[in-house]
């Protein structure tokens, strides 16, 4: 049995991520208070609560992966605001636009990697940040790289996600030592060093919840 990811699992992942955001909201707020404006927790909670509501209430559940991600994207874009809204919105929007996704209700590890690659590039296109500027990209890119490598190497999904998570964690921790060059923290200059980036933290949990979803199913 190929451990592909089903539409239901992707939906479960997003619900799990919404719950996770509730749990880590205070941490995100604290991290943002240290080098930003203390709203990243509230922003993510507002957005992911709306996503949860949509997923639970929708009279017609998304019929394919692309539609699911498009809904998530539009919900985040229309409810989050700040920097995180358009950035996470772009992540899911571009992921939804991954070639050959239309009609899919199951995605392979390869496809999942392609989606995350598209998403991460969407974030970069939107926000114009580079690696090492202390943003969510410093989690997204290393994680996607690892996921792609794992997919190419033919690892099954749980193992691929373990590697992804490992890379995401390393990326996350690397943001601590970085000086911010994009977003609000950049105004602090060198004073931004020594703090973990809030957006990178919320991005990291995209992968913890993804792994948890797959492991729960396994």
């Amino acid at each position, binding site marked *: 049995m190929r451990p592909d990811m089903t539409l239901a699992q992707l939906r479960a992942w997003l619900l799990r991520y919404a719950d996770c955001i*509730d749990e880590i*909201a*205070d941490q995100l*707020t604290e991290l943002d*208070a*240290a*080098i*930003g*404006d*203390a*709203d990243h*927790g*509230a*922003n993510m*909670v*507002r957005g992911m609560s709306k996503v949860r509501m949509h997923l639970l209430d929708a009279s017609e559940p998304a019929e394919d992966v692309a539609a699911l991600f498009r809904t998530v994207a539009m919900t985040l*874009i*229309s*409810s*989050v*605001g*700040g*920097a*995180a*809204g*358009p*950035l996470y*919105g772009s992540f899911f929007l571009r992921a939804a636009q991954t070639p050959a996704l239309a009609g899919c209700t199951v995605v392979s590890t390869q496809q999942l990697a392609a989606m995350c690659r598209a998403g991460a590039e969407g974030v970069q296109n*939107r*926000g114009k940040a580079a690696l090492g500027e202390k943003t969510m990209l410093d989690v997204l890119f290393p994680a996607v790289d690892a996921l792609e490598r794992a997919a190419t190497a033919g690892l099954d999904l749980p193992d691929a996600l373990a590697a992804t998570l490992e890379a995401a964690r390393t990326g996350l921790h690397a943001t601590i030592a970085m000086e911010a060059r*994009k*977003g*609000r923290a*950049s*105004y*602090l*200059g060198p*004073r931004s060093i020594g703090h973990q980036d809030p957006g990178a933290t919320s991005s990291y949990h995209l992968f913890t919840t993804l792994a948890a979803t797959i492991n729960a199913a396994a």
Partner: protein
Amino acid sequence: MTAAEPMQKLINDPANAVADSLRGFALAHASMVRLYESPCVLVRRDAPVQGKVTVISGSGSGHEPLNTGYVGRGMLDAACPGDIFTSPTPDQYLAAIDATHGGQGVVLIVKNYAGGVLNSEMAMELAAARAVELASVLVSDDVAVPDKARRRGLGGAVLVEKVAGAAADAGYTLEQVVAVSQRASNQVRSMGVALSSCTAPMLGRPTFRLPAGTMEVGVGIHGEAGRMRIETTSADAVVELLLEAVAADLELRPGERVLAMVTGLGGTPQQELYIVYNHLHRMLEAQGVVVERSLVGDFVTSLDMAGAAVTVLRLDDELLRLWDAPVWTPTLRW
């Protein structure tokens, strides 16, 4: 998400602070404005005003009177208030455009923050489907940020919004409104100091700790810490520090005419703001600069943050005429 400790704030549920406040605002200024709640937009009572360019601005809440206090005749057609310190969503811009555009195009006044820029860009992309001509003007007047491309929008936003609103009222085309507003934006510089952090309702405690005897120089308006921390000093010395940075960057020369503005950050009383203005005015005059107009009060704030920011706009005849043009909003009136 709820604060563990009681807050010294006149709020109900922190999650509803923005909505409660906007409702009160709409009730208090019912003759001037109308509130739509979802998505959240505050528009001129008489919107849409046909036959003129429409001027819209959005920003996070917590900067009151920015932008709600500037909605009205001669200034903004609509304000899009985001959550506290959070730029509004594209949907809010779209709703504002739909509620107020009057057939001559729409200009969005955007302060240069990642969130502000990203959301307004998205709004413009999404609005491309509509038959409305759209343009934006970027405000980035904060000289505390050395890299010009990353400069934040501060008090300059108020002045640019006034100029844009007056130009629109005077029958300028969209292109002309954008041109003169962008010129105002290019001619304005600001810098601020904080003497305390603010307390955002959702966080429930000061965003940063500022020990007595220190102040944050070069703060933005989102309650975030500034560029550096120095020992507190006299108001006059603070003014000199701020004006030096502002005037140097603006390359102010003797004989030039300016509008000088002192905005409180929310927790500083008028008495102190006028102490600041007193020295600012005298310093400018001592440099041979002509202070044609002034503005002193709470115009762009960060909730209850103590402190002030200085803004200088280089005036020319057209900008002065547009500044002096009639305006009738909850905050500015003449």
